């Protein structure tokens, strides 16, 4: 059995850990709040964009040809993996990485057929270790990213598709369901395919014409979606970290209770032993 002093030290160190995890949980809760507000602000932008894009698509059914809307034979696929800067968020990162690895191993025979765009240090390190082809990377994204932070990576991905360097673009990320539930999702972003109609289709004039409008609209739409996915992933990250830290705080409390019980028992045993030694000593004297 551990000595009294060992137990005391263990209790103190667990208490310190609990303080840290508790603080991290509260920090993540605050960040989650802000992430949700930001996602709301973004929502009005993406809804508008989708409305206009689907309007144009439905109003000109069949007559519109745009490379971003058409699927072509897939020779090379790109994956954007949204991971966090660090761990301590439960299965947040490993879920995304597992999904990417699964998709890659199921769909591709050689590393020439795909490439990865890594967002977040955790993803980047893992892909490097596995020696997977990385087209681009972005680390050090802030907790409250702005559009400027991802603009270059979004432009790059959309540009690669336009230049036909890749024929499909997938996003792999954690979707934020609620503060306690996140799920891994993969989404085929490009080619855009069917854009579902939102609300009634209004008839517009296009200046100068529908095709030129689409020319500026579709890249904007795709880049916007990448940013929206990042916001979603960030909200999920904060939620995952909050839950992970919550459960480690709970575990620490449980450990402290257990050690305190052991400590009290050990102390009681020591006292009992001392008394019986004194009693034994006194009896021997008589």
């Amino acid at each position: 059995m551990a000595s009294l002093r060992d137990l005391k030290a263990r209790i103190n160190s667990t208490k310190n850990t609990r303080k840290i995890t508790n603080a991290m949980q509260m920090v993540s809760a605050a960040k989650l709040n802000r992430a949700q507000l930001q996602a709301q602000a973004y929502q009005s932008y993406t809804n508008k964009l989708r409305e206009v894009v689907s309007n144009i698509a439905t109003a000109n059914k069949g007559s519109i040809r745009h490379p971003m809307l058409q699927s072509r034979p897939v020779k090379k696929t790109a994956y954007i993996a949204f991971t966090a800067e660090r761990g301590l968020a439960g299965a947040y990162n490993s879920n995304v990485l597992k999904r990417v690895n699964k998709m890659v191993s199921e769909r591709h025979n050689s590393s020439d057929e795909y490439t990865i765009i890594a967002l977040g240090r955790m993803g980047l390190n893992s892909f490097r270790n596995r020696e997977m082809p990385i087209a681009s990377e972005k680390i050090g994204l802030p907790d409250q990213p702005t559009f400027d932070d991802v603009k270059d990576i979004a432009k790059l991905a959309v540009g690669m598709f336009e230049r036909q360097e890749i024929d499909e673009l997938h996003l792999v990320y954690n979707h934020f369901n609620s503060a306690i539930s996140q799920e891994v999702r993969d989404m085929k972003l490009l080619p855009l395919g069917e854009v579902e109609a939102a609300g009634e289709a209004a008839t517009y004039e296009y200046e100068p014409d529908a095709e030129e409008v689409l020319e500026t609209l579709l890249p904007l739409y795709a880049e916007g979606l990448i940013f929206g996915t990042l916001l979603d992933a960030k909200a999920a990250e904060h939620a995952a970290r909050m839950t992970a830290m919550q459960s480690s705080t709970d575990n620490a409390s449980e450990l402290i209770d257990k050690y305190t019980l052991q400590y009290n028992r050990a102390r009681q045993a020591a006292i009992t032993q001392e008394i019986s030694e004194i009693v034994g000593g006194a009896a021997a004297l008589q």
Partner: protein
Amino acid sequence: MNTISASIVTPNGTVYEGNVHMISVRATGGDMGILPNHIPIVAPLKISAVKLKSEGIDEYVAVSGGFVEVRRGSVVTILTEAAERKEDIDVERAQLAKEKAQQRLAELNEKTAEYQEAQKELQRAENRLHVASL
């Protein structure tokens, strides 16, 4: 008097929202003035200034591309990657961005994609400075 309900929306949130009497924008096909009851139209914008005219006050917003959407019932939405109201523009930062872009332009090859990107960056910075000085 008739008014237009105007909003300028970016991925980072709504930059402008309000009722105005006239909006003038620079579309890729030329300048456009939008008055109440304009027909529904969609047009891409240049990196330019948007002028929102309401009684006695002219407001200016710098937009970096995007497009304008006019809907039935005098609803105008401008969607763009980045927009700044005249009073929010940080002149010093814009000046810095301009110098940085000019520096990059001097170093890069004219045919690369980066060169075009830098050129756009320069346009954006100049546009911000222009709007700030209006």
